């Protein structure tokens, strides 16, 4: 149990997937402009990531490995993720039309979110049990949510500041992310 909790904390803070492993940067930069959008993006990613990681791990462990089909893993994983993203698109449109509109293009683009695919690939290589895979996925999702919500809060404050003209737009967002990454490096001592 202690191992699993360590895995969870490690994935959230020490090896934060976004800020130390460069995964999921596309939605992080794209949807992290407003706090409300960031919340919904975090919720959506958590749902898709956990569900797809569980399904992908079962497929990898009990179908691809025994039949020696590991070379197909990329295609199978992408297929599962795209299906779950389409499903959550329909679900969100039905139960919460406003957030669905707010997320816009980022919802279908979740299918190509490197975090979701990256966690599926990492689980296949490293996780030694189903429970460990689930814990790592939840930790990665929580790490992503933490990073994107903090980032969106910072960027909402930035709107009110006078940023030098060449830095306006993408550059100042990258500087913000860089400083956040610097802060997260401090957690490395915990590991």
């Amino acid at each position, binding site marked *: 149990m202690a191992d699993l909790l360590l895995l969870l904390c490690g994935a959230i803070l020490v090896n934060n997937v976004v*800020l130390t492993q460069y995964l999921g940067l596309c939605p992080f930069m*794209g949807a992290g402009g407003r706090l409300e959008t960031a919340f919904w993006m975090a919720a959506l990613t958590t749902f898709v990531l956990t569900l797809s990681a569980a399904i992908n791990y079962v497929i990898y462990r009990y179908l691809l490995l025994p039949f020696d089909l590991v070379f197909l893993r990329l295609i199978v994983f992408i297929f599962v993720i795209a299906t779950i993203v389409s499903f959550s698109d329909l679900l969100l449109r039905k139960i919460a039309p406003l957030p669905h509109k707010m997320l816009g293009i980022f919802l279908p*683009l979740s299918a190509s979110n490197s975090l979701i695919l990256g966690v599926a690939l990492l689980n296949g290589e490293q996780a030694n049990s189903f429970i460990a895979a689930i814990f790592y996925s939840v930790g990665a999702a929580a790490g992503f949510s933490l990073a994107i919500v903090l980032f969106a809060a910072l960027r909402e404050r930035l709107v009110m500041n006078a940023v030098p003209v060449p830095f306006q737009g993408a550059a100042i967002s*990258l500087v913000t992310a860089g400083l956040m990454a610097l802060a997260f*490096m401090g957690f490395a001592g915990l590991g």
Partner: protein
Amino acid sequence: MTATATLNFNSCRDKLALTPLLGLCPLLAVSNSAISALTLGLCTLSVLLGSSFCISLLRNRFTPALRLPAYMLIIASFTSCAEFLLQAYSYALAERLGLFLPLIVSNCLILGHAESFASKTPPLHALRDALGLGLSFILVLLVLGMLREALGSGRLFTNMDLLLPFATNWEFICFNSPPFPLALTPSGAFLLLAFLIAFKNYFDQRPAQHQPAPEPEPAGSKRVRVTGQV
């Protein structure tokens, strides 16, 4: 930033401006040395060319609902091929890129090009545009990779012979001690890319100041569409 539906991939300047933002994950992840940057750039270019060509050939056969999953499957197939080819060519290099070699699939650049360009134009045209886009991605990747390697480790072109067999003694030492070790960490990657973009913005904006101001348009000559979204 990732609004693929509204992108215009035509001019070269647009491409250079877009690539850092669309291909952000691989750009920051593998740009810690020139060799990783160049290898991933070449792999991405080949996947981009192959998938653009295929999607453009099949562009009239996709139904709107199944479009995205179909693109993803085509891109995933080409990425698998690129992964195996690189593993066969140099396993050490494939190990070095690690997770980011299969993650070429999730590069928004490729999906964005498929969605906004390849699905609307004939194959040769799409191929030409994909070549331009891929080369500008390699350029940005290589510049950032060289910068990070030189500043973070003090030497340049280490292990170039993994990719190019003739490049055995290309390594040279720029600084005796690394001047900015932070450049090799994720934080340094974000900051250096931010400064590169700001640098480019600065030079883009400068000539505009020297030109005479454009004549004001007569009022009411242009219709502006108001969408309510900002």
